């Protein structure tokens, strides 16, 4: 494996988030992408006190995995024309990556205030779950559940965790989702329900899999020195990173016990933010629970806990809302919903609400540092955004 050399001074405290918005996630049969984008962005405008977006928004950074018209979908919905509009597509890390481009644009001095919009409308395809294509003979089955379940057998045999630990993650996230007004599923589930549900890809039952949904989320970011002209409690970007690693299906060195891109991106983002003990210094995290096992591995891959110790921490409730490091406070992809391009921005939305003390019944008390995590591809790419309120 190569050793990546980090150069440059990073992004810490140069950029602030001054407004966030999110539409209600779900099977939004009554809404097109325009409706969802307008709902999310106008909430963010109000949050930032922006009254004249035509003058105040200099550029738009969009993220979408299934766009129908791409950049025009966003610009035409908002009638924001004659300015830069770009679209990024980076698997399930798309939302956080769009945010990263926006942050870089502001930090470089190219723009003062920009809008980040993540959106996707998968429920216009007429299928439940991912689309199946037969345009290859190699690499099948090509389903996300199949890809992400590939670590389970070896991890279970090595460290002794199993379906029960995965089920506890599903139960936790289902509970947290009931406390988030804009989440898709508001349903508590029991151990029996999870264990006996329809098998999708062993060991994942229906309840181990994220809820694919429609949705859009937005963030408005600006220069640090301008932040307080928008609102008095801006949230600062401590670090943002993305790393792409070798495909586990072709990587000659993969060990099926950890996802490499998470480890690589975490190293980078912690260096940017000066974090040496993530478990202590980070107070809550939104992790990419596309499948319960992804959340389990991420506890370890992000350095929160020792490799192999997830089982014990799951049983101790470490990552529950009342635990030492609450994870997926709004229900996560599992129950809040997973409109691929919107997910990373939705996580930033939740972390901003938490850091500003606006998260209602799911509020984590005294949180000053929050992490969000996306993992996408086979999986190969991980994006992280670390936000804080003390700058």
């Amino acid at each position, binding site marked *: 494996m*190569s050793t990546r050399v980090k150069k440059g001074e990073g992004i810490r405290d140069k950029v602030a988030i001054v407004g966030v918005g999110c539409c209600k996630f779900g099977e939004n049969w009554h809404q097109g992408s325009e409706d969802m984008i307008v709902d999310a962005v106008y909430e963010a405008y109000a949050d930032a006190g922006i009254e004249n977006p035509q003058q105040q928004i200099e550029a738009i950074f969009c993220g979408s995995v299934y766009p129908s018209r791409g950049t025009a979908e966003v610009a035409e919905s908002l009638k924001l024309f004659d300015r830069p509009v770009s679209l990024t597509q980076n698997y399930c890390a798309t939302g956080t990556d769009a945010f990263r481009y926006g942050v870089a644009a502001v930090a470089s001095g190219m723009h003062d205030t920009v809008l980040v919009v993540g959106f996707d409308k998968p429920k216009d395809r007429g299928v439940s*779950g991912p689309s*199946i*294509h*037969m*345009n*290859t*003979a*190699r*690499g*099948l*089955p*090509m*389903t996300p*559940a*199949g890809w992400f*379940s*590939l*670590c*389970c*057998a*070896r991890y279970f*045999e090595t460290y002794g965790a199993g379906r029960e630990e995965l089920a506890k993650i599903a139960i936790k996230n289902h509970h947290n989702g009931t406390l988030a007004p804009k989440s898709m599923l508001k349903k508590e589930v029991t151990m029996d329900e999870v264990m006996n549900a*329809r*098998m*999708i*890809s*062993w060991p994942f039952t229906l309840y181990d899999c994220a809820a694919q949904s429609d949705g859009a989320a937005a963030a408005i970011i600006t220069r640090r020195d301008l932040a307080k002209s928008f609102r008095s409690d801006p949230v600062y970007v401590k670090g943002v990173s993305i790393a792409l690693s*070798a495909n*586990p*299906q*072709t*990587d*000659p*060195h*993969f060990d*099926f016990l950890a996802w490499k891109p998470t480890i690589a991106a975490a190293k980078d983002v912690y260096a940017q933010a000066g974090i040496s003990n993530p478990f202590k210094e980070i107070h809550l995290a939104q992790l990419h629970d596309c499948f319960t096992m992804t959340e389990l591995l991420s506890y370890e891959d992000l350095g929160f806990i020792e490799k192999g110790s997830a089982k014990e921490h799951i049983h101790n409730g470490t990552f529950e809302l009342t635990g030492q490091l609450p994870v997926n406070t709004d229900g996560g992809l599992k129950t809040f919903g997973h409109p691929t391009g919107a997910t990373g921005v939705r996580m930033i939305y939740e972390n901003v609400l938490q850091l500003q003390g606006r998260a209602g019944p799911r509020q984590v008390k005294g949180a000053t540092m929050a992490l969000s995590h996306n993992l996408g591809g086979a999986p190969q790419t991980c994006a992280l955004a670390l936000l804080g309120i003390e700058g």
Partner: protein
Amino acid sequence: MTTAAGITRYGIYIPSTRLPLAFIHGGKAKEGGPEKAVAGFDEDSITMAVTAAADCLQGMDRRTIDGVYFASTTSPFREKQAAAFVAKALDLRSDISTIDFGGTLRAAASALVAAINAVHAGSAKQILVIASDSRLAAPRSPIESNFGDAAVAFLIGSKNILAGVESSYAIADEIYDAWRSETDKFIRSWEDRFVVTHGYQDNLVKACKGLLEKLNRSVKDYNKAVIYGPDARSLSSAAKAIGFSSEKVQDALFGKLGNCGTAFAPLLLASSLEQAQAGDKLLLAFYGDGAEVLSLVVHPHGFKPHHSIAWYLQRGKALRSYDSYLKSRHLEASEFDRRGGDGVPATVHYRERDSDISFLAQRCTKCGTLHFPACRVCYGCYAKDQFENVRLSDKTGKVLSYSFDHFFPTPEPPLIVGMCEVDNGARVYVQMTDATQDMLRCDLPVEFVFRKIHDAGHRPNYFWKSRPL
């Protein structure tokens, strides 16, 4: 100048799927009851041929093969050669002679004789002859109980002969006994008694007598008669008419395997070679639009295929129901039938044949790291384009991790998939076949078999799968 020629090696393949004959008439399967071997949903005459041939060629230098003769009435293609496809999957040289023999149940005899003649004449040193069939009878029709699926491969050469071909005799006949027109999906046949008496028995007796006369021999000179037979009764009455007593007739495994078309007489020959002594004389009789008979003599030899017929017979697994058989042959509408769907673009197939069909990995000549599929820059040392090909299909390996996919469409869910590490260190993400969920564990030893992955785009799309050792 002519060279002595004969069979120097052989390999067989019998699918592990069994259809209990009771299912065909709506009954329940009984332990030990009559059954037949049927190709699984991921098998056809090409995949079976590749597996039989791989066993035949085990441990030898495949670059020494000069030709592939493929005999079948059920090539998946009406236009497109199966022999070239099989040669590619076996990773043989490209400057070889490839021929498809088809259209008749005795296509394998024609292929064998042609190969013998080519070696005799010195135009080739070694030719691989493969007979493979997976014939389709109309569901629940009387002939459905008779048909089985299998493949047999023979290597024809002049060195280390294990069965020399002394002579052959053929007659042609024109009769509507069993046939399939351009548009028929299922085999048609005329009334049984007419077909057996005037087609099968008349031709077989005539050809056998012709060969005996030609060699000035009698049935007493033969230790075993290896005779194609559509069913047990017809076979025994034909053998009697030729003059063979029942103990001299090679057991045709009725009730276990079924009549596997062009591969049937070859399979019975393989079965007889498993037991034959040096010096034994074998009479090998094929039927179809006439008949063809070969006289063979067994030589002392040390060759044994990796898997015997007994090995294949004892690992049979009965289907759960008649419906699952119908589904696997696309005889029943299924919501997962995506044959009209996208399919592999012909250009992609063309570019990726070395990986997908020949199953070649690449070894970095600088650092030794193995890559599958092919790539341009090394994972290990980042050298560009410094690779040599390494065949994976003849290696074994182990499962690194696995999953059971219930979501991906397949006739028999769940689809078992595993990351495998080949013994040489290469890694492959492949589906698993001939396995059940309870067999799976990390580090399970596996081998690799050529299988059909799906029929999208209205054509078979093939790749390799792993199979528990």
